[in-house]
């Protein structure tokens, strides 16, 4: 800093300071513009490629047996994604919320350790989670939709815990104290006062975790494996998901398969964006409103 408090800036250095300021401001703004441009490039490219083939056929048919053939769609993958992510959500939401209640409402050494490990678990590569579920489950029971759901459950769990614990910490202590003063037990206070107050924030967290799980591919390669031939609704058999079908069709090298994969990519991006925006909208009516 040329103009410390002891050396008052002259007019010249002040002008130079302003010029530097303008230049830096421009560079920082440019970085933000570049990041947004990147997002638009990705979204526009996906939309442009995906719209060529996305249509009723794509959403209602299974892929042709020979990947070089045109036509067909990813309906089995879409159904598989719904089933696998649905099971994963049904498991991770209650367990994640319960764990977050322990972290935020009870505390203690175990809670602190679990809180730190939750953060570490968020950073765990999903392929490692997939390899774990393979070692735990698939070597004993074979590839299945359930194994895929178990992997996505482990991917979602720390996300749900982190988001829920953060919202629970925002619930004002006045509410808890009022409830306890009325003679409610600790558990009753949490179930009837704290969780309902934090409901919209918790839902936001769960929706964001679902958005993340829908797009996961790597752990499913090691667990659900995929099944391109027919619609499979029994989760104890190997299943396809939208993300797996995109990956498998994208890397084939056949233009026809890639056309299907682009349509699938657009579908996946639209699903993910819908969940992200839904979460954002819910989050806006946040805790401040429901607590008031």
């Amino acid at each position: 800093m040329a103009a410390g408090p002891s050396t008052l800036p002259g007019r010249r250095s002040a002008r130079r300071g302003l010029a530097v300021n303008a230049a830096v401001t421009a560079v920082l703004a440019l970085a933000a513009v570049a990041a947004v441009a990147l997002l638009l490039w990705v979204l526009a490219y996906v939309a442009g490629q995906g719209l060529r083939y996305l249509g009723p056929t794509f959403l209602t048919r299974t892929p042709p047996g020979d990947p070089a053939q045109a036509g067909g769609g990813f309906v089995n993958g879409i159904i598989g994604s719904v089933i696998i992510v649905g099971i994963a959500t049904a498991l991770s939401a209650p367990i994640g919320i319960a764990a977050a209640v322990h972290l935020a409402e009870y505390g203690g050494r175990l809670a602190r350790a679990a809180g730190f490990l939750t953060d570490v678990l968020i950073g765990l590569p999903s392929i490692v989670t997939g390899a774990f579920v393979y070692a735990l489950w698939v070597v004993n029971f074979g590839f299945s939709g359930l194994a895929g759901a178990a992997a996505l459950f482990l991917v979602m769990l720390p996300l749900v815990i982190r988001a829920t614990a953060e919202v629970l910490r925002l619930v004002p202590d006045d509410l808890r104290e009022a409830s306890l003063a009325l003679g409610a037990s600790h558990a009753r206070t949490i179930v009837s006062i704290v969780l309902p107050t934090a409901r919209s924030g918790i839902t936001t967290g769960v929706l964001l975790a679902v958005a993340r799980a829908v797009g996961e591919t790597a752990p499913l390669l090691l667990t659900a494996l995929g099944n391109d031939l027919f619609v499979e609704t029994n989760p104890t058999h190997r299943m396809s998901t939208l993300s797996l079908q995109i990956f498998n069709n994208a890397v084939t090298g056949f233009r026809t398969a890639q056309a299907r994969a682009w349509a699938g990519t657009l579908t996946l991006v639209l699903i993910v964006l819908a969940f992200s925006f839904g979460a954002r909208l819910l989050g806006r009516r946040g805790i401040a409103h429901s607590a008031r």
Partner: protein
Amino acid sequence: MTRLADTCAPPRRMRARWPGGDTAFRVAVTAASAFVIVVLVATAVFLLRQAWPALRHYGVLSFLGSDRWAPSEATASSAHPNPYGIAQFVYGSAVTSLIAMALAVPVAVAVSLYLTEIAPSWLRKPLSGLIDLLAAIPSVVYGFWGIFALIPAIRPAGTRLSQTLGSTPVLGPVLAGPFFGVSYAAAGIVLAIMVLPIITAICREVFATVPTTDKESALALGATRWEILRMAVLPRSRSGIAGAAVLGLGRALGETIAVTMVIGNSVLSITTSVLGPGATMPSVIANEFTESTEPFHLQSLMVVAAWLLLITLSVNVVGRLVVRRSGEESA
């Protein structure tokens, strides 16, 4: 406050309470959070158990000592030499992540400075939302986009680089051609885009903790906005930025599908040129897992997974500790 009255006032509910309920609830939520710890421990135990046959057959250290991954040379009886060298995957993960960090960290710091300190207030929320959307796009989408949009876009620059600098003495080995598109460089760029929103989000939180009084004092001394950033914001945020970068690095090291699609999956040795094809630790697992039929092939992939677990765990623990400490300092 209406809701509070609605939900807990009726005395009927209070009487219906089962006396052991409080304890049962406490036990249940404690079990749920203990589950997190169990998951982490079980991950390590089960990966090692799967990797164990290969580790015992070839020796724990022989994997890191070789950069040749040739499953077809594996036999059930011969232990030497180990055909499953993983040094090139460690190298590939390091190189692609370093490229990603070099590109993403400066941009992320710039973007988050703009978002927290410079952008007009009406623009801050929508702009942050857009940057966050970059993180919402799935990995497989980035990979597919990388093959068809990014690689054609960088091909002219890469080809020219390899032609002009590819045979010079110092930079030659690093930038040697031919450049086919699929490469460490392409993977590094895709990773940079993927970790950019993660580093930006943490940096934004870090910058937001800088006390307003510090900025106002600088302003009162006649500082321009850049001088405020340099004097008040950046010095206080140094360790927070470092932590954000480390957490971004952890994410880059573990990213799988996008990298698998653009790196070229060359597993036979270390490719020194960043414009050449390679493989990373996650990419080899994803790429070969379903086709592993040779003796010890699958077990060796589990060895890669175990090393990846060890590396990403250490990186994440360090990153979390640094971010946490910087948060406590400025609090």
